[in-house]
């Protein structure tokens, strides 16, 4: 089946199918919340909420929903079946998260400029640490779920 969406989808058939389901679910959730929002706005005008905030919140909802479903489904690390592979992936997640936090810090510095006071550096370090923690936790939970799912399949294999 040809679709422009294919370039964003995994090559593995099972993964592709699951991701399509997650995206479809998030679209339905988005539609439902949009209708609820419109209904609420019609009967109780909420003029103080800017359109930009609404669009950002709804887009964020779709992204977060899809990421959480993907993470919990245990399909991301589909080739990690033993402790050695698991430990290797944990190390990789730590380094990938550091890399992401460093790239974020550089982009942050390019946009905001070099901080002149020590508080600016503290803010940057704190933010980078938060980004690192978030990236690490998201990937670690995904790995945990994948490893659990793979271990179940592995246990069934031992007969």
């Amino acid at each position, binding site marked *: 089946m040809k679709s422009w969406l294919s370039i964003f989808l995994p090559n593995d*058939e*099972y993964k592709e199918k699951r991701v399509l389901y997650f995206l479809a679910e998030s679209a339905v959730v988005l539609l439902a919340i949009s209708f609820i929002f419109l209904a609420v706005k019609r009967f109780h005008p909420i003029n103080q909420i800017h359109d930009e905030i609404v669009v950002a919140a709804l887009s964020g909802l779709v992204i977060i929903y899809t990421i959480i479903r993907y993470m919990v489904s245990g399909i991301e690390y*589909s*080739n990690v079946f033993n402790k050695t592979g698991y430990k290797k992936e944990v190390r990789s997640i730590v380094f990938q998260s550091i890399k992401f936090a460093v790239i974020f810090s550089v982009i942050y510095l390019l946009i905001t400029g070099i901080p002149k006071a020590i508080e600016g550096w503290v803010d940057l370090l704190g933010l980078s640490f938060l980004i690192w923690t978030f990236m690490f936790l998201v990937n670690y939970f995904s790995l945990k779920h994948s490893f659990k*799912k793979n271990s179940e*399949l592995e246990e*069934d*294999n031992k007969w």
Partner: protein
Amino acid sequence: MNNKVKVARIEKNMTQEELSKQIKVTRQTIGLIEKGRYNPSLQLCISIAKALDKTLNELFWEEEQH
């Protein structure tokens, strides 16, 4: 869906990893197919049958229960 992929793979002395690499899917997908927790597309069924030197009938056709 019940199938005989696991038996055919073991008969051919192949690991899940080897089969998954040959047909370009993840090992998890092979595990799920063997366990009957995922129904593969016809295209993937054909790839599995070719890799294991079996026919679709031999791997995926359900025999009648008497």
